[in-house]
């Protein structure tokens, strides 16, 4: 009994470490490819699309973290992204602070705001939290419609109809390909930050909370602190993503952040898969690359919204782990099928 337990555990850890190595290798290759090959291969249109995709993968990572790891649904993350974008636009236009400092500052300020606003929401859980965050997204959109995004005007809001200033980029990454690389590096740092959390004490606490808040509490996990921690971490990385977004586009407008985008972001994160970090990358690709492809093919760019709706229904009914889980398994099955098909003539030939 004891021995078999040990064997299983050892077998499990062996298997998971092997998967880790493969996944890590693929991730490193993907990042290297994105850093060195992609900017050479792509046209300017696709470089811009890829930059936005990378930025949104950070926001998607935040949603995935909340939903998949802690079991909290936030339907307002694009609104939080807009907060980060607002703060960074303000700092970049009215100060001469170095860009990385601005990114960090917008992350921290979004974290503070997100946590403060989220604080009342944390007193409720489950369905109520989802509804409160949806209303929060609506409320932030209302505020942004009034304040607009800073564009170099005077005053605290920094908005002026006749002063269309451009949000600056870091001096080492002013061109589009360079800024794409810069975004990839920042995204890698954010993913690493989240991975570090998941692999250490907070990650274990979140898993416990997701399984059962009661059990987590009895096991000595401070549920409130760790929930708030998850909220804060998500707001931080989303704020940093917002900082990248402003600089990537040069100008920000409120209509880029409608309430429905928060819901759509949540939908693609569910489709991508909430239990692995790959899901965030897939989600961002679904969100930006697919509509871009559709536009090129002459299909209405709103058609993906319909597909995302269908995807959500599929996820909740049959595939809770999303594409990140489903795709490798399907590919493996396909591979086996092809392998069997290829082998069959050979075996029949040898038997006859």
């Amino acid at each position, binding site marked *: 009994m004891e021995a078999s337990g040990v064997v299983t555990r050892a077998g499990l850890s062996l298997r998971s470490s092997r998967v880790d190595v493969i996944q890590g290798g693929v991730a490193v290759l993907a990042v290297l490819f994105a850093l060195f090959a992609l900017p050479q291969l792509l046209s300017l249109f696709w470089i811009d699309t890829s930059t936005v995709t990378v930025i949104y993968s950070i926001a998607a990572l935040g949603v995935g973290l909340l939903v998949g790891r802690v079991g909290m649904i936030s339907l307002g993350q694009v609104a939080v992204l807009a907060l980060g974008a607002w703060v960074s636009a303000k700092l970049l236009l009215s100060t001469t602070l170095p860009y990385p400092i601005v990114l960090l500052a917008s992350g921290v300020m979004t974290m503070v705001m997100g946590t403060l606003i989220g604080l*009342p929401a944390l007193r409720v859980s489950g369905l109520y939290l989802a509804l409160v965050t949806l209303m929060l997204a609506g409320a932030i959109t209302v505020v942004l419609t009034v304040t607009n995004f800073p564009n170099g005007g005077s005053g605290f809001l920094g908005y002026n109809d006749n002063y269309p200033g451009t949000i600056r980029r870091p001096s080492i990454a002013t061109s589009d390909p360079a800024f794409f690389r810069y975004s990839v590096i920042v995204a890698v740092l954010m993913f690493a930050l989240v991975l570090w959390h998941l692999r250490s004490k907070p990650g274990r606490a979140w898993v416990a909370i997701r399984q059962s808040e009661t059990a987590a509490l009895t096991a000595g996990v401070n549920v409130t602190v760790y929930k708030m921690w998850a909220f804060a971490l998500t707001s931080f990385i989303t704020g940093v993503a917002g900082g990248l977004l402003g600089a990537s586009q040069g100008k920000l407008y409120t209509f880029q952040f409608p309430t429905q985008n928060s819901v759509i972001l949540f939908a693609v994160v569910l489709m991508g898969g909430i239990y692995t970090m790959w899901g965030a990358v897939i989600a961002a690709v679904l969100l930006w690359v697919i509509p871009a492809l559709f536009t090129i093919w002459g299909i209405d760019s709103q058609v993906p919204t319909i597909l995302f709706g269908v995807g959500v229904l599929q996820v909740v009914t049959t595939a809770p782990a999303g594409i990140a889980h489903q795709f490798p398994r399907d590919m493996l099955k396909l591979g086996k099928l092809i392998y069997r098909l290829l082998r069959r003539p050979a075996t029949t030939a040898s038997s006859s």
Partner: protein
Amino acid sequence: MPSWSSFQPFIPIGVALGGVYALSSVGMVVLYRATGVLNLAYGAVGAMGAMISWSLINNAGVPSGWAYLVAVVFGGVSTLLYGVIFGPALAARDPLVKAVGTLGFALILLGLMTVLWSNSNITRSITFPTDNSGFNIGAIPVEWTQVIAFAFGLVMAIGATVFLRFTKIGTAMRALADDREITATLGVPVRRVEAAAWFGSGILAGVSGLLLADLDTLDPSTLTFLVIFTVSAALIARLRSITLAFVAAIVIGVVDNMITPINSITDYRDMTPFVLAIVALLSFSRGRQYSFARGGIR
């Protein structure tokens, strides 16, 4: 602070919109109580119905009465279809998962509307014949449409309360809300009762969509996300009390519109549902620990 007279015209609008929010949130609460599903596609269903009837009137020349009927029937049938297909599959899941499913439905409808009515240069509107006639209460002009909207909300709130308490199917719904399995064991045709709840609430979504298209604006995205006002009222009622949902909806409608003349905060008035719901949630949850209850506050 503006004078009282500048607030006056906004009272009937607020009460009317509050009436429609009440209509929706009563439908939402009844469906939630019967099936455990919080239908976030409520706004999208109403919006799609209103868009269809606009097209029927303006492009196909259908008499407006029939077009409105089509909108209402669309609301009922589409919601019923969703409920019949996905209701049973998700019946045993957490309320949160059920709500997420309806979010998928909402996205499908929203995407469809944006594709089908892609020309955003046309200003679309729905106007009832009752918009142009009305009467005065003191110095305040009131349109008949506004009266109808409020009356619908009031009648539905009373009707739903009576229905749930005194009819057989209403009792079955209340039993379902408590325990689906036991209700089924008692011989209640669970699927049929749930279908009735889906259809009924869908009809209400269709009616609210039309009224909101007239009173507010006919725009797919705006109408879809007016569900936030409805959700807020339902949330303040803790997804249980129909009376509270009605009162909350009226208060939200009135406060939202009464803020209009106050220049300093008029632009922020649409934050009303969020602010009121947060205040309500916080005051409800004072001194109580809610994190254990599945689905939050019960």
